[in-house]
């Protein structure tokens, strides 16, 4: 399942493309590390769920999408929006509560959406996006369009009624949906070992008549290949699939998490299998030079620093706008 770095690049994946993926993964990581630091400094409030350690999943899946395809995201959604090409200035501004943010300060970390990129939205409710994903897919099917929907969720979402109902609906109507389950081993403190009586979460899909596969979520090439196949199946009208991407979150579930339910050793072991380190080794074994990788890393750090600068110099929203977005305008204009 996991590819060794000595293997050649998979077909149809060029070195240039792989370097682009590295840039995205590094951006996700640096962005979320920055958010973590800002939280500690008291500049970001509420809560936030960091994608650190899981970067290969969003990046690999979204790399297999085509323009016009859409995703539904989760409470742990920064990575999805960045992989879609999201504007990190507007993301950072949103997290800092500024008017230049994605949601003008209304939403924050858990509610970033960008229809223009195909992101129907992050979501504060576990499994809340799954029925919406199915509905978006129904919309494409009814309008005889060829787009595909990727519905991201965590492992915990598979125990929600909304997942069950959405999966069945997608299956009976052969909707163009790919359920991507980011199995990061824990739903908050609930270990998948305790919360499922399954060896692998992918096995659950059989109950809905949905084909499923399990991949190493820390190996972007495995993720990308599995996603490509599932997306092609959906696009061809053959119905939904489920991908279980096995990965790990290094940080706590959210800012309230003291990590009491797992060991330092376990976290350390997963860090040995870091998805970014893995991709770097792979690229170097396939001809990339170390200095160009370091250059990408520097550029990413600068871009995130610039985003922070943009956000911190942006104005706070004025309470006079509070009611602006409660209802859509009759004339179709936006707030």
């Amino acid at each position, binding site marked *: 399942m996991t590819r060794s770095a000595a293997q050649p690049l998979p077909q149809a994946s060029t070195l240039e493309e792989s370097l682009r993926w590295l840039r995205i993964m590094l951006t996700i990581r640096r962005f979320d590390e920055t958010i973590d630091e800002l939280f500690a400094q008291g500049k970001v*409030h*509420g*809560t936030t769920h960091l994608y650190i350690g899981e970067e290969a999943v969003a990046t690999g899946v979204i790399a297999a999408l085509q323009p016009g395809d859409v995703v539904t995201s989760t409470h742990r959604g920064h990575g999805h929006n960045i992989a879609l090409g999201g504007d990190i200035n507007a993301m950072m501004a*949103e997290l800092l*509560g*500024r008017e230049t*943010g994605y*949601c003008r*300060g*209304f*939403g*924050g*970390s*858990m*509610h970033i959406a960008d229809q223009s990129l195909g992101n129907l939205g992050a*979501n*504060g*409710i*576990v*499994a809340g996006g799954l029925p919406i994903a199915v509905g978006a897919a129904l919309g494409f099917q009814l309008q005889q369009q060829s787009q595909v929907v990727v519905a991201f969720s965590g492992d*915990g*979402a598979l*125990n*929600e*009624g*909304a997942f069950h109902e959405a999966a069945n609906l997608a299956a009976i109507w052969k909707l163009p949906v790919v359920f991507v389950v980011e199995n990061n081993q824990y*739903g*908050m*403190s*609930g270990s998948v070992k*305790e*919360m*499922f009586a399954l060896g692998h979460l992918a096995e659950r899909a059989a109950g809905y008549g949905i084909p499923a596969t399990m991949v190493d979520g820390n190996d972007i090439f495995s993720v990308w290949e599995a996603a490509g196949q599932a997306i092609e199946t959906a696009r061809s009208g053959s119905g939904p699939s489920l991908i279980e991407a096995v990965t790990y979150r290094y940080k706590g579930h959210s*800012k*309230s998490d003291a990590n*009491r*339910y797992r060991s330092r050793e376990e976290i350390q072991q997963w860090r040995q299998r870091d998805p970014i380190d893995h991709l770097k080794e792979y690229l170097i074994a396939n001809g990339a030079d170390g200095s160009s990788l370091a250059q990408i890393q520097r550029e990413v750090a600068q871009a995130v620093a610039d985003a922070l600068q943009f956000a911190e110099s942006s104005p*706070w*929203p*004025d*309470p006079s*706008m*509070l*009611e602006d977005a*409660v209802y859509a305008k009759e004339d179709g204009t936006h707030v």
Partner: protein
Amino acid sequence: MATETSRKLTMARAISEAIDLEMAADSRVFVMGEDVGPYGGIFGSTTGLFTKYGPNRVIDTPISESAFIGAAAGAAAEGLRPIVELMFVDFFGVAMDQIYNHLAKNHYMSGGSVSHPLVLMTAMGAGYNDAAQHSQTLYGLFAHVPGLKVVVPSNAYDAKGLMIQSIRDPNPVMYFFHKGLLGLGWMPSDDRAVVTVPEESYTIPLGRANIVRDGTDVTIVTIGAMVHRAVEAAEIAAVKGISVEVVDLRTLVPLDTGTILSSLKKTHRLVIVDEDYLSFGMSGEIAAIAAEQALEYLEAPVRRVAVPNVPIPYSRPLEQAVIPSTPRILDAVTYVTEF
């Protein structure tokens, strides 16, 4: 009644202590919910219980709220006394059918044959920028449905006594704790909620309001975290020579109408402070009671200070603008006084 003590507790500690005492006293009592076990509950309401009572009485569940709330109803029907936690009141949508069609109605529909003595506890409230799906109070939604009792403590003493009473109540009780009152290290908390709490077991009856401050000119009726904002406003008003009585309802169902009315007959002016949305909620209900049963005593229009009809925004200046604040309460007090 409780004996004298000088021990002060946070509200989170008071809640976990109440549950601990009832679990020790009654083997039918058990706790179920997400992260209630070794984690101790995300808001500390079950801290220490897993170690003391083990996994058969402190049960971690999957993220399957409809299933575990329904399961609690079933266990209660079979003689147990479940305490169920669903982390945030904002999350109740996923389990609402079990709550408002089953838990609330089974006793009635069955002619009293089936009952569900359980406590469904949850965190509520804004003030720390957690946005629209993690900041609501929504107690009015549950108070609206006949068959559920609704408890909203404002301090550690009440939290303990009301929890023990809720566990012993033969009905389903929704118990709301405000995140900003709990005294958690990782979240801002109101020191006014940290009060002296006796170590032994005691109860506070459901449906009995608490007059937290006596006054003669204006009555403020409120609940939960807003009790402390109202008291602050009353303290400032006192300097200006306005005497404000603050009524902490403590429970919405049952509602202590008698205390509200006797206060109005004394002060003749009413301000309602509510952290729920303005429309169709607690503030409207109290205003309606005043209009129906005390109109002849009122010398000024009723004023309501509540969250305007917008989802709770994320950004700090926006959020602060929607949560009832001490200055907004003072404005309302001034208005009814000068009318």
